[in-house]
């Protein structure tokens, strides 16, 4: 977590520093309904990256001038806990967190039936409790769970993961040290496991061919995340026989 000395190699014999293969994701886990006062909540973990999300609403949207007479408005807030990184982070919003909040909202807007609740707002709060890269992806995954747990009508879930290039090699699910010393970081999110990209943020130099390859790998990662999300929700809400319908 955070910066340590630059390792000589990030990949050796096709294994990454934490022992993962190139296309392995870190261990993921999900909890549903962890904040009792919230309408819905969830957590998502990629290894040491841990995000918590809560949903409040639908409720009358404030400020009023931003109300949409036709639609529900999602209000996303991504923040990092001051203790979530090696160096303490000043609490509250930064330019980075404002940008991430925006792209999170735009991603989630793809699946929420916003027309069903005119003039209302739903607050989607995301707090990164512990950061080891790919925090925006963990946040979006947790928020998706929280929205579903809140019973907000949705077409489907949003699944997110990161893809990177380290030591010239494409890898799935970028960890902290790989983020610090790697060449490229691409955060993506898809609608469920479909070929619909709703988040794309790229840093680093790469060719078009590398980018296309990264998209394919990222889709596989999102499909894995989506599978976990569905299972976690089923586990919580399954009451009787439930067909495995899409």
């Amino acid at each position, binding site marked *: 977590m955070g910066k340590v000395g630059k390792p000589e190699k990030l990949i050796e014999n096709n294994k990454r520093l934490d022992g993962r293969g190139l296309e392995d994701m870190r261990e993921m886990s999900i909890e549903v309904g962890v904040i009792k006062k919230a309408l819905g909540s969830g957590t998502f973990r990629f290894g040491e990256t841990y995000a918590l999300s809560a949903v409040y609403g639908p409720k009358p949207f404030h400020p009023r001038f931003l109300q949409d007479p036709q639609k529900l408005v999602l209000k996303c807030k991504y923040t990092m806990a001051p203790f979530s990184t090696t160096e303490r982070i000043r609490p509250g919003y930064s330019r980075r967190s404002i940008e991430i909040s925006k792209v999170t909202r735009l991603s989630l807007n793809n699946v929420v039936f916003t027309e069903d609740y005119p003039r209302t707002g739903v607050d989607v709060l995301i707090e990164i409790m512990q950061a080891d890269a790919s925090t925006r992806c963990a946040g979006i995954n947790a928020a998706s769970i929280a929205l579903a747990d809140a019973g907000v009508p949705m077409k489907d879930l949003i699944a997110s993961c990161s893809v990177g290039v380290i030591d010239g090699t494409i890898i799935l699910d970028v960890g902290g040290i790989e983020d610090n010393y790697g060449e490229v970081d691409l955060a993506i999110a898809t609608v469920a496991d479909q070929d619909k990209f709703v988040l794309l943020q790229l*840093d680093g130099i790469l060719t078009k061919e590398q980018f296309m390859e990264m998209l394919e790998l990222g889709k596989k990662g999102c499909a894995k995340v989506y599978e976990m999300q569905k299972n976690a929700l089923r586990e919580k809400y399954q009451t009787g026989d439930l067909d495995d319908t899409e």
Partner: protein
Amino acid sequence: MTLSNYIKKLVEEGSRIEKRRFDEFREVKVEKGVIKTAEGSARVRIGNTHVIAGVKISVGQPFPDTPDEGILIVGAELNPIASADFESGPPSEDAIELARVVDRGIRESKAIELEKLCIEAGEKVWMINIDIDILDHDGNLIDAGGLAAIAALLDAKIPKYEDEKIVKGEFIGNLPVVDMPIPVTITKISNKLLLDTNVEEEDAMDARITISSNKDNNLCAMQKGGDGHFTTEELEKAVDLAIEKGKELRALLT
């Protein structure tokens, strides 16, 4: 029918309100050195969209993790003078996004040799502030802002620094700028990909993606915006469009 629906219908029929091709920009004009008080500056007009970027250079303390490198800071102002949609006050979400997308293109392409901007390691380095001021908003602000920013950097000179002070009006040389990252925004309307959308078209968009490419025609930054999605096929087309148009726009800088 709303204007947005009309625009979508036109696009479905293969046409645009300004009669342009989908991949056609409005006239682009770049003019360097337009602000005498800035160490570097540029004006960019894309159709009615008008942007000025100014570079101010000062001396400051380096960041602890890069003690021997200069500092780059990009800011953007959606000036209420430019549009009824812009409000006074602290930078809006859109202004922050614009600045950060432009910043990523410049930073990730390593366009400025920041390691050459150290005065005294751990103590003093050159601080490069690029401020993008939107003066007339008729769409495609990220492309206009990004082009103005790199043009202003190419125009920028490092001041003379003597006895712990900047000597006003005297310069020791050009800012070491070694690449020209160009952001190109691709907007999806009615499942078609359009370049250089105006304000009315942006109101009708499903999604947009800004792709910055460098002088080697590689990608260096990307940001998806808007509510909708892109498919793999659309993204491949978008990358080709961004690289091709990036080449053309880069040619305007030299």
